[in-house]
């Protein structure tokens, strides 16, 4: 389906990442924002609020992030595409309801503008320290789709993508941006509405009395209905059967929860997206995502100029992790460099999928935040010069 014109501000605009995220949400058809203001994500809400009256979207500022996500889940069941936006501390508070969203299979989008943690950290500085949290932060087993934009344009594009994934698979989707991209002002081109593809909610169309809220289709995704249509369905966060009724024994747990993994794991090939630069002949591959991939592009160019065969793999979807592609590259390349604005998160996944085939160098959070192409260049040089095979992650201080 094509996007609803009301929310699409077609044209070329200078926007920062946060504003682009709000525009992306509106273009994707998001009509409800549950929010609690937190630096550095406030501009998303501000933009959304300012545009809401003309688009016909609603919002509510709740008393905390816990209730913000709870309200988003409630709103999603009314048939409105819904999102919330936050930063690290807020994401931590949302963890319980992320689990509820998984269990109720409620489509929604959570935009996380990462800043330095833990605790209160440095609220205005960019970091990528919540990447593992998005995947593992809620209790119990779940799978999530997480996208990492690296520019305001991508904030716009990926937000639309996020809504599409969430509707397609009936899951909460995380946009893992950071304070750097969020504050960055660049030109964002918003295409006409008829050029934006929108995934519509997959509604149940059968008879009212035979509706089963969790009856899965072949992709393990159950079709949904809105409230107020006379289906009078029941959903629960407890382990449940197709009817949504709680049944608490081990067979039902298997029946209920295992498909929650499968609906993402089996669709990995459809979800995973990467962007590659010069990886065909690369000896050193730099794997990055989000803001760091900007500096990586620069470093790769410089490395090539100085004669090192460097290439880059940018993760568009960090979760699910592009396991196969990373393994392929590890086999071809001599070394992999992973720069991250944290002290080692996604690099662990790279190590796991590298199978000891290539040396793995990790470049942790540096002094310069996202702008550390020189450090990356140095890391590439060192990686290309190390000839002996080493096991484990080699950390560059």
């Amino acid at each position, binding site marked *: 389906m094509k996007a609803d014109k009301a929310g699409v501000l077609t044209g070329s605009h200078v926007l*920062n990442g946060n504003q682009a995220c709000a525009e992306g949400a509106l273009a994707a058809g998001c009509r409800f924002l549950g929010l609690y203001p937190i630096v550095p994500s406030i501009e998303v809400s501000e933009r959304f609020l*300012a545009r809401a*009256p003309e688009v016909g979207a609603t919002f509510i500022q709740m008393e905390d992030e*816990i209730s913000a996500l*709870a309200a988003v*889940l409630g709103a999603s069941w009314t048939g409105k595409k*819904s999102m919330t936006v936050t930063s690290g501390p807020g994401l931590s508070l949302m963890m319980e309801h992320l689990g509820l969203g998984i269990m109720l299979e409620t489509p929604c989008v959570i935009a996380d503008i990462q800043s330095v943690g833990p605790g209160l950290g440095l609220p205005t500085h960019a970091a990528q320290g919540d990447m593992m949290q998005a995947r593992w932060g809620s209790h119990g087993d779940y799978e999530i789709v997480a996208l990492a934009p690296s520019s305001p344009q991508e904030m716009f594009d990926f937000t639309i993508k996020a809504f599409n994934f969430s509707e397609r698979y009936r899951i909460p989707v995380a946009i893992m941006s950071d304070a750097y991209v969020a504050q960055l002002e660049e030109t964002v081109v918003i295409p006409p509405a008829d050029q934006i593809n929108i995934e519509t909610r997959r509604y149940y169309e059968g008879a009212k009395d035979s509706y089963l809220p969790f009856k899965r289709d072949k992709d393990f995704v159950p079709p949904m209905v809105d409230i107020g249509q006379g289906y009078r369905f029941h*959903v629960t966060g407890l382990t449940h059967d197709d009817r949504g009724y709680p049944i608490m024994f081990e067979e039902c747990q298997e029946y209920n929860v295992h498909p929650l993994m499968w609906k993402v794991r089996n669709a990995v090939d459809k979800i995973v997206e990467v962007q590659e630069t010069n990886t065909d002949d690369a000896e050193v591959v730099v794997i990055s995502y989000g803001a760091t991939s900007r500096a990586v592009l620069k470093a790769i160019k410089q490395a090539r100029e100085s004669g090192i065969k460097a290439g880059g793999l940018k993760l568009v979807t960090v979760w699910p992790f592009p396991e196969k592609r990373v393994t392929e590259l590890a086999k071809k390349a001599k070394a992999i460099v992973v720069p991250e604005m944290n002290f080692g998160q996604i690099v662990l996944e790279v190590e796991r999928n590298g199978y000891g085939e290539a040396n793995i160098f990790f470049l942790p959070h540096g002094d310069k935040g996202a702008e550390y192409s020189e450090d990356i260049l140095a890391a590439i040089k060192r990686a290309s010069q190390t000839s002996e095979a080493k096991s484990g992650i080699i950390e560059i201080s």
Partner: protein
Amino acid sequence: MMETPKTDEKQEIHPMENLLRMDRMPHIWCPTCGIGLAVTAFTAALEKANIDPNTVSIVSGIGCTGRVAGYVKLDSFHTTHGRPIAFATGIKVASPKTKVVVFSGDGDLMAIGGNHFIHAARRNIDMLVVCVNNFIYAMTGGQVAPTTPLAAYATTSPYGCVEPPFNIPYLAESSGAVYVARWTTLHIRRLTNSLTEALQKTGFSVVEAISPCGMYYSRINRLGDGLDMMRFYHDNVEIRHGEDTKNLDIGFQTKIICGKFVDRERPSYNERYNQWLSEVKTAGRHSKGQKGSKK
């Protein structure tokens, strides 16, 4: 309005069958528990208030009363502990025509959900909150609740409760609720009437339904079974409509004052929102936000 279910004449039909999930019966509540009575009162009120059940969403949290959503044949949500009001707020704001009911227990709404309770009351979100108060956390096995009377026993107050309980009507009124009533589950008709009134009201309405808990509260405190509790209510409840909410404290086995205490008008959240919407639309404030400006 409601379809009459086609059945065999010989089969006995529950009078509330079209509002209850009969395929889930029997329910999990213990004998002598009062939650079932509160549900009966609610379904009766729903019929009495003449509301199309298809437009009603019911949200529950966790706990014994949290299971209500699973037994009522409406669009029903069983959510996380303490957050049904927040979840319901999302529904009401996104879909203003839906009638939202939150049906949960004292521990769920007043302890972990206290913040959402006071904030929803302040915002005056149009919803009916039915708080079944059994003075204890029963689902987890009898822990002290913020409603447990002073000196009453519970498993996490083995030497007697040391914290004074909430006066729920007073808290509801001070945070902005427009309709506040309290009944015990003995007062089934009055409870039904209050629920009917509250359903027809626009704004944040709170009905506290005091219920016996024969399995934990009465057992731990040696107060007899549910019937003894009902007798206690019969002998010790005083009905005082319009009583000042600050006089409604409940002590351990003391007099309980019931009645309708608050019935007032305040603009609801949706009304305020719509007013704001028309203001900004006329003022054209929204154009300001389109600049890519930073603070």
